[in-house]
């Protein structure tokens, strides 16, 4: 509200009444500024609280998965069982069972014997087989070997199974608990770092399950995505920004690219199923097809961020290049593109981080499957890390709950590293014009 100041001179004097009005309003203005600041800070605080809760719950559930319980048994590598001609098919589980019987003589009855043999993981027999195949000198000796314990024993030792609950409501019987206590008193139980988690492929036995297959599959898929989406995305961005004529067709292309960025990811999976699997006949569940589908998904991100990077290069660079005699192509390729590359790189890394966490499009092309063998190439069936997490989250065994959280920790770790790299690169190489 403009109040006409009535004065005789050129100097503007505010009458006392105005100052009073201003002073009264000042307090309200300060209050509303403080309120606004408070709202902003509390929004940040709320999101930090949620972030903290997310990390706390995942890390709280998952950190125990990085340790695995092992039981020390004295294995007698009986040369009568391990004959020269049948080393790979010999009865290694018999060796394990024999050692357990020596430790706990007097266990009779089918149920009790099975309960005792169930203390050791089924994978222990395969661990022994690997040891003997690598070093046949072991045959005929007796050694103390640390073998992987069964997942129920692992859960008891870690405290995830409540011992105070009545026996009928537990997976571990009182008898098994007494054996575990005896073994613990004899110093035969210890927790070691769970290397199997990083070296094994998927398994139905939680103590043998690992993320190696998923990590290698993710790696191959992301390589394919990067090799395809980066050149195509950068080339499209350069064309659209520098060379495309400003007509209707270019507008339609731009609108479509912007829309593609918002399409739900499962639609790309359906497209992949129809074109890559049914029409082109590519192998199902291969990282090659997964990479192709994810390329389609990340292209809009790379194109849009690439165009923004190119737009940010000032006209003076372009005009300077043209001024000293460079052709248009030379100007774009030698002058503009190198300067815009850091921004494009940032967009690519963010696009890759998004692609790393995708599950829905891979569902339709068959990558949501139980695959034990670690993939060896681009056409072997494989799965990716988020899919592995999804499959483990569905399994009933108690030990998979902690492994699911541990796999989430690994995935989050990768994503944080990738996004941090993007931020670092941006800070280091981007030029502020």
């Amino acid at each position, binding site marked *: 509200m403009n109040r006409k100041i009535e004065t005789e001179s050129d100097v503007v004097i505010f009458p006392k009444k105005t100052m009073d009005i201003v002073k009264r309003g000042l307090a309200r203005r300060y209050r509303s500024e403080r309120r606004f600041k408070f709202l902003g800070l509390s929004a940040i605080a709320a999101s930090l609280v949620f972030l903290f809760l997310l990390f706390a719950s995942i890390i709280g559930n998952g950190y125990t998965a990085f340790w695995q319980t092992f039981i020390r048994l004295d294995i007698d590598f009986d040369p009568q069982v391990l004959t020269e001609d049948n080393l790979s098919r010999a009865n290694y589980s018999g060796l394990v069972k024999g050692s357990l019987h020596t430790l706990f003589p007097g266990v009779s009855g089918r149920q009790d014997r099975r309960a005792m043999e169930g203390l050791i993981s089924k994978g222990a027999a395969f661990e022994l087989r690997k040891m003997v195949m690598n070093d046949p000198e072991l045959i005929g000796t007796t050694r103390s070997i640390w073998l992987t314990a069964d997942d129920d024993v692992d859960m008891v030792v870690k405290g995830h199974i409540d011992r105070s609950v009545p026996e009928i409501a*537990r997976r571990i019987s009182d008898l098994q608990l007494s054996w575990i206590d005896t073994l613990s008193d004899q110093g035969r139980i210890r927790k070691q770092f769970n290397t199997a988690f990083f070296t094994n492929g998927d398994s139905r036995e939680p103590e043998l399950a690992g993320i190696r297959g998923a990590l290698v599959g993710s790696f191959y898929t992301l390589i394919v995505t990067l090799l395809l989406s980066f050149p195509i995305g950068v080339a499209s961005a350069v064309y659209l920004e520098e060379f495309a004529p400003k007509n209707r067709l270019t507008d339609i292309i731009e609108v479509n690219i912007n829309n593609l960025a918002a399409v739900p990811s499962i639609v790309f999976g359906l497209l992949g199923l129809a074109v890559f699997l049914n029409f082109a006949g*590519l192998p199902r569940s291969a990282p090659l097809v997964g990479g192709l589908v994810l390329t389609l998904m990340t292209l809009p991100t790379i194109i849009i961020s690439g165009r923004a990077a190119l737009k940010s290069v000032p006209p003076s660079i372009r005009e300077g290049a043209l001024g000293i005699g460079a052709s248009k192509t030379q100007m774009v390729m030698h002058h503009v593109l190198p300067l815009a590359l850091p921004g494009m790189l940032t967009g690519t890394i963010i696009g890759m981080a998004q692609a790393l966490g995708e599950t829905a499009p891979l569902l339709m092309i068959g990558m949501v499957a139980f695959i*034990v*063998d670690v993939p060896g190439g681009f056409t072997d069936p494989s799965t990716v890390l988020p899919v592995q997490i999804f499959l483990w989250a569905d399994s*009933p065994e108690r030990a998979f709950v902690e492994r699911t959280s541990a796999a989430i920790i690994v995935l989050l770790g990768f994503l944080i590293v990738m996004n941090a790299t993007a931020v670092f690169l941006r800070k280091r190489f981007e030029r502020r014009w």
Partner: protein
Amino acid sequence: MFKKVAIVAAGVILFSSAQMASAQSARDYISIVGSSTVYPFATVVAEQFGKTTQYKTPKIESTGTGGGFKLFCTGVGVEHPDITNASRRIKSTELEQCQANGVKEVVELKIGYDGIVFANSKKAEPLNISRKDIFLALAKDVPDPNGGENTVPNPYKTWKDVNGSLPDKKIEVLGPPPTSGTRDAFVEMVMEEGGNSFDWIKALSKSDSSKYKGICHTVREDGAYIEAGENDNLIVQKLDANPDAFGIFGFSFLDQNTDKIQGALIDGVEPTFDAIADGSYPVSRSLYCYAKKAHVDVIPGMKEYLDEFASEAAWGPDGYLVEKGMIPMPDAEREKFGADVKDLKILESVE
């Protein structure tokens, strides 16, 4: 110039896709699809098979029973799956579709039983309920409480409204969505049986089957029945948090979480391993596995995988599948199906 580049590029793409197609024809692993209920059991057999033989571990996808049949019946060839798992028998329409698409020789293998339990948290009292009461509590339209042969929208809000001897708690059931085979089995074994306890509804099954299906297969949508998705671990967690709610899922999840949840007694029978095995627990269904005979000689290891599944070490009462929560078949059935799969007996028709 541009045209030349385009032609060369198109040629390269077509050539490489032809190469890829031939890479597919050399598929050396078994491809399995199908039921999410059989998935935990099939994966154990596959892993054991991969570890103990020189063949590659089969790849198993959990597509659901219906989705598995669709993929299976698309045709014969390396780009189609070799085996499909199912938590119900194949329907005659599905078998006809298979025949029509060239999948003429289908081998059927029944692998065991699975129970469906109606569970609640151990913090609450165990429930003893009849199938008739479950039907009245969960159906969308129930017989008129005042008598007569018509249906009204379900008016019952608490279990006590349905049957005076049941607790006075709000009806809240977490169950599988319509895409799930578990839901199909639950509807068939519990809801239909509950509906059949009313004579006029039972008569409808012969005279007007679509009306019968409408009454017995439709579950209420007013919030008492909550579709909790396929993730049974999530249902167990929700039951733990809400002691008044009930959940519907397979026996293996009850088996793995006996410290947190308990199964309700249905028609007076408790859901234990023995009760499901001898058939006294009424809500149990058969699990199946279907294979294409035409693929047996093309894909290495297929016969050996089926033999591993049908071996005593796997599906017998002392086998490793029992530890995962599957209920084994009686001796006579195991022998019959074991012999059938050894001969790769073809499934002629389904009644």
